[in-house]
């Protein structure tokens, strides 16, 4: 593998609270090539914060520090806001959880996707339209011409998420960060959406960071997995090696999930004392 696409070293995100500053991400380090990386954790683990830090989307009073954070050799920490804007959407994109909240309700779908493209590159109208329709087809939307004229509230959740993906991938970025992209969707639609992300990412040789609380999902769609707990990375492994996970938290998490052919009388509950100091409830 050539030089890593993304290098993160000692990333820390701090928020001030009534009881003093709290680190929600505690000095984590990882690298990403043109592969699919899954970041798994429960709520409060810091996984979403990690995704947002890469795009420098965390606002005051939150503070992001790191020893190093580079994308394709470029330093991310020192860039000005203006320079970050050039990167966002064009080279690094982000798909979020709920299309109800992430799509602009007063613009048609076609206009929003076109806007994503036009922000970074001026194109003649006809070519713009063609590329929008081509992208809608790439995310497996039938009848793209009709859908392009619809408003976000007129499409279903699964379709909205596919539109979001179209919007984020049309400028052909190098890295896609997907933050719980299927959590708001029905089970049968989840697989479709993830297949689409998977196809597009591997087809274009992009890097993917898939953030989720669902261990099974991440193990099916990623090459490598990071498990986060309370702001730290407790496990890094290949997806295929997940059942050999070493850290008690990961093993506990896997054991605590009910199985389809469940025969246990009681689910094993995480004994947090094996890795925490006992604080918290």
């Amino acid at each position, binding site marked *: 593998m050539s030089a890593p696409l993304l290098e993160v070293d000692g990333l820390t995100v701090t928020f001030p609270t009534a009881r003093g500053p709290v680190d929600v991400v505690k000095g984590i380090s990882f690298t990403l090539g043109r592969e699919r990386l899954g970041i798994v954790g429960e709520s409060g683990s810091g996984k979403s914060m990690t995704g947002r830090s890469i795009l420098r989307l965390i606002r005051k009073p939150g503070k992001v520090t790191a020893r190093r954070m580079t994308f394709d050799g470029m330093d991310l920490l020192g860039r000005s806001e203006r320079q970050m804007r050039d990167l966002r959407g064009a080279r690094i994109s982000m798909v979020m959880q709920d299309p109800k909240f992430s799509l602009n309700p007063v613009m048609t779908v076609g206009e929003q996707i076109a806007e994503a493209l036009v922000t970074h590159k001026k194109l003649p109208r006809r070519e713009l339209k063609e590329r929008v329709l081509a992208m809608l087809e790439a995310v497996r939307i039938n009848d793209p011409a009709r859908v392009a004229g619809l408003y976000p509230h007129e499409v279903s959740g699964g379709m909205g998420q596919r539109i979001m993906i179209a919007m984020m991938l049309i400028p052909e970025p190098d890295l896609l960060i997907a933050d719980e992209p299927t959590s708001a969707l029905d*089970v049968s639609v989840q697989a479709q959406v993830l297949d689409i992300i998977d196809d597009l990412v591997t087809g274009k040789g992009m890097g993917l960071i898939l953030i989720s609380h669902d261990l099974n999902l991440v193990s099916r769609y990623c090459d490598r997995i990071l498990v986060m707990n309370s702001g730290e990375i407790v496990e890094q492994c290949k997806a295929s090696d997940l059942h050999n996970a070493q850290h008690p938290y990961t093993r506990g998490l896997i054991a605590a999930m009910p199985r389809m052919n469940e025969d246990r009388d009681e689910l094993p509950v995480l004994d947090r004392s094996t890795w925490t100091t006992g604080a918290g409830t």
Partner: protein
Amino acid sequence: MTDAAIHLENLTISYGDTAVVHDVTFDVAEGESFALVGESGSGKSTILKAISGLAPDWTGSIAVEGKPRGHSPDRTFAETCQMVFQDPYGSLHPRKTIDTCLAEPLAIHGIGGRDGRVKDMLAAVGLDQRFRFRFPHQLSGGQRQRVAIARALMLEPRVLLLDEPTSALDVSVQAEILNLLKKLRREQGLTYLMVTHNLPVVSFLCDRLAVMRYGRVVEIAGVDALKSGQLSDPYSRELYAASGGILHPA
């Protein structure tokens, strides 16, 4: 059979002009744990609302513990059947302490000995006494859900309606709540009617299940059929596969 804990027959529920549940018929036996499974829009939560009286526009018949149901919430019914809601952040009144929340049903029904009963119930759901006078925003999601379960049990109902009780919780917290629900049912001989979209949870907690789609029941099966991947309806099998199950011939 009127000795069923819950009896639904030809139940059709509408919101305004649209029928969202069509002609549903099934029974839940006394002491059984029954799951209603489906995706969003399948009408599963609406059935719970109709049984409890929160969705008044229905035709057909609903009987709980042998008594036919009316179309609105009912004091006597409250002592037979209670509901646990999905969202731990929305099901507790933000300005009332946990103690008030648990004592409220007792106050409404004029039941005495509140202090002792509240204490006992907190212990029964695994919450330390120090949570008693806190406000909901001081509790985590799992703790709030325990309070919701405690509240539902204050009137000692025989039947519990559970609307996706663990969907909004983290995996590790979900395990604790599922264990709690299983234990309580065993100890008190409760009947559960649980709505969920999560099949492994059904496998852990339930005896039978009904799969719903677009407001209709497409299949009723025992949990063994689920565990062995032998559901018969094509939609059920699709749902099963999408949830990561490995299919076998029905």
